[in-house]
């Protein structure tokens, strides 16, 4: 119960002030497309040079938690996921916003984020030693199967048909091979300087989601100026509370999936939201409503991506291994004050460790309060006329892509992929599976190459990838996931065939 002893430290005037600044600043940074949590934390590091270690970490921890949640704002209102963690939020969140329910979507997302986030931090507080072992259990072969599991999600994610979903996933997997390969350094498909470093996920994300919309808005032009202005429904917070807690299935699936996946070094945050979304869709009796502005979709995705925050720090705090890029930046924030994560942190600087963890707990709640406060105001974005909106979104897209690596090359990549996506969307393909392919490709490839190198040196590829309980469990989940998709597709075809027959009969009679 060490953490209770240091709760008071969070509420000293300076610490609490920093917590507020970090939370509000984080929400704003997170809502800006392109400013991912990693970048927001990196931007704040210089400010912590002059602060005490605990104070610096409070600022960084608060910023981390609230940027992850803040990403939902642009995902819902503009359909630009601020970071890969928010991709799944666009699927139902933005559809809700388009119906004038932006306020409701934002409230649900902040409440779900807080529930997931608090659960994740509690796991960090109580189960850290157990979780550390779990995080280490995932070697190359397991990460490879996990990435394959992610690939099986592609087919059923937000597409009219499994085949089109898989096709766009394949385009993503192919795009992921562009650039230097991470292990061997071989050059692949480098036809222009802009892609010599491969296709960066964030500019691709912004382009694929934002540009088709911008083109769509420009194409509509001023034709229907009156019709396009939505009435934004007001939505009382108490109702949002009721709704979040009545969707217990989505909330718990999101929270648990997010915590478990967040723990795995190197995979975590990017796919937690998507996997949780997919799982709660498969287990929901109302699965047909997903993608049409269904509240379960928002709740599952957002509770998952904040639940991952706490566990993602376990490898860093216990083993001194940063499990995610953001954790790596936080490591710098600790080292600069001469504090080494691991036993040194908890034995010799318990005040720093626990004040930091406690502040993330309080930060989740502050984030939720401010989020709910701005939800009503932010939802008015939907009332901005299309012509203005298109210009603003285009500006944000260029700014966001450029700021990732200060490179115009990324802006070209963003614009090219976005334009291509506009045409693909007209044929019924969608962006989410494509991005998932782009994210999972390198994970699957690098771990397969590493795994097979280890396997060739020690045993054989067959026994390395296909034996061991964790491998078998993951393979079983992959098979189940594929089987389920096939069954769904077959059933869907049979149903639509029956509908056609019925429709014909109706037409005849």
């Amino acid at each position, binding site marked *: 119960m060490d953490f209770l002893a240091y709760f008071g430290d969070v509420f000293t005037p300076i610490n609490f002030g920093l917590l507020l600044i970090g939370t509000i600043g984080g929400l704003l940074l997170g809502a800006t497309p392109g400013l991912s949590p990693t970048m927001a934390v990196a931007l704040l590091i210089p400010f912590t040079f002059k602060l005490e270690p605990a104070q610096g970490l409070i600022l960084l921890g608060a910023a981390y938690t609230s940027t992850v949640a803040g990403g939902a704002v642009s995902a819902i209102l503009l359909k630009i996921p601020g970071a890969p963690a928010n991709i799944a939020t666009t699927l139902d969140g933005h559809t809700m916003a388009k119906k004038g329910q932006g306020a409701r979507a934002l409230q649900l997302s902040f409440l779900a984020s807080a529930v997931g986030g608090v659960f994740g931090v509690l796991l960090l507080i109580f189960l850290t030693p157990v979780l550390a072992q779990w995080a280490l259990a995932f070697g190359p072969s397991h990460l490879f199967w996990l990435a394959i599991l992610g690939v099986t999600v592609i087919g059923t994610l937000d597409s009219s048909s499994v085949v089109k979903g898989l096709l766009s996933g394949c385009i993503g997997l192919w795009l992921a091979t562009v650039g230097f390969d991470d*292990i*061997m350094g071989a050059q692949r498909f480098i036809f222009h300087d802009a892609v010599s470093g491969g296709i960066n996920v964030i500019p691709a994300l912004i382009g694929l989601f934002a540009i088709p919309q911008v083109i769509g808005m420009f194409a509509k032009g001023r034709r229907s100026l009156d019709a396009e202005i939505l009435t934004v429904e007001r939505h009382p917070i108490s109702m949002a509370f009721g709704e979040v807690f009545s969707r217990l299935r989505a909330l718990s699936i999101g929270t648990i999936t997010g915590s478990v996946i967040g723990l795995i070094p190197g995979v975590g945050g990017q796919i937690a939201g998507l996997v949780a979304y997919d799982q709660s869709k498969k287990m929901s009796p109302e699965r047909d409503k997903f993608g049409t502005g269904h509240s379960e979709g928002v709740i599952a995705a957002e509770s998952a991506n904040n639940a991952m925050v706490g566990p993602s720090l376990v490898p860093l705090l216990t083993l001194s291994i940063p499990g995610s890029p953001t954790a790596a930046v936080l490591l710098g924030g600790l080292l600069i004050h001469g504090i080494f994560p691991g036993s040194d942190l908890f034995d010799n600087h318990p005040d720093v460790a626990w004040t930091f963890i406690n502040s993330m707990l309080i930060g989740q709640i502050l984030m939720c309060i401010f989020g709910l406060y701005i939800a009503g105001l932010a939802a008015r974005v939907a009332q901005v006329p299309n012509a203005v909106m298109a210009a603003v979104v285009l500006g944000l897209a260029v700014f966001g892509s450029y700021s990732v690596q200060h490179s115009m090359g990324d802006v070209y990549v963003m614009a090219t992929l976005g334009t291509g996506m506009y045409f693909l969307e007209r044929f019924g393909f969608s962006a989410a599976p494509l991005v998932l392919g782009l994210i999972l490709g390198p994970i699957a490839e690098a771990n397969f190459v590493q795994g097979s190198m*280890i396997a060739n040196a020690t045993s054989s590829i067959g026994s390395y990838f296909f034996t061991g309980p964790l491998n078998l469990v993951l393979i079983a989940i992959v098979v189940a996931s594929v089987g389920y998709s096939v069954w769904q597709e077959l059933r869907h075809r049979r149903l639509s065939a029956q509908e056609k027959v019925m429709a014909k009969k109706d037409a005849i009679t």
Partner: protein
Amino acid sequence: MKNLIASAAIALTALAGGALADENYPERPIMLMVSYGAGGATDFQARIVTMTAGNEDALGMPIAIINKPGAGGRVGWNWFAGQAESDGYTLGAYNVPHFIAQSIEGGVSYAADSFEPIANWGADPAVFVVAADSEFNSMNDVVDYAAANPGKLTFSGAGLFVGHHIAALQLEKAAGVKLAYIPNDKGGAGAMKAVIAGEVLGGVNNLSDAFRAREAGNVKILGVFDLERNDFLPDVPTLKEQGFDIDNSSVNFRGVMVPKGTPQPIIDKLAAVVPTMFANGRVASKMKAGGSPMHIMTRDEVIEMWKAREVALKELLAGL
């Protein structure tokens, strides 16, 4: 005619302005390109050693870090050699032997002479680590195992053609054994995780990261790939002490450089000021606190070091 005079006048003012700009350099904030991601050891150290740049006794202007990560640093250095402005406002961080080894291997658009070194701030030797519960207690144990099981001793490192890989090649050559080097796609941190989790039997890693992992009780450090023992690890013998003929070719030197074509007065000014900026007491204390070994070298010393490395690496990599 009028046009000609006008353009001549413009050219003249531009020239005069240029000369003046060199004298007043720097007049605006400077950017330092780091070819690794935020949070990595190079990024972390670059942020510390440049934090006093804005002081009056240093450059008088702050230095901002720009990260261009990818492909073991190749992306950033390609950009630096080909696209960076050579006006003195774009500095780059170098990692030797990485970029020299990559330029020897080929496939990149830079070579050692594409850049002008300014000063060196740190030297991070490679060390050999094994998990805390490993049966290996010295480098001889490791080599004996490798001799008995050729090609079966798996050990991790940050990638191909980086310091860790060079150290691995040196070990193979000096000990006359065949090893299985497993490059990691997540750099030193990923390679360290592979050791601690028992995915591989051992690993080559940065001294600073290994020191931290040992403090946390996760690894044993069996040897240092350097000429002398390190102040952070006085109890760990060098590979040479343990009977392997291995020099400091794999030591990761970090420092600041500018693209070729930067005006000489600016290079001279930077070469004079930057080493004193690194020597600042606050910088030294932060670096020590973070477990990062410092090693300040002037421009002339770095030029010599680059040359020596290039010769040594060409010889080592020729056999690949």
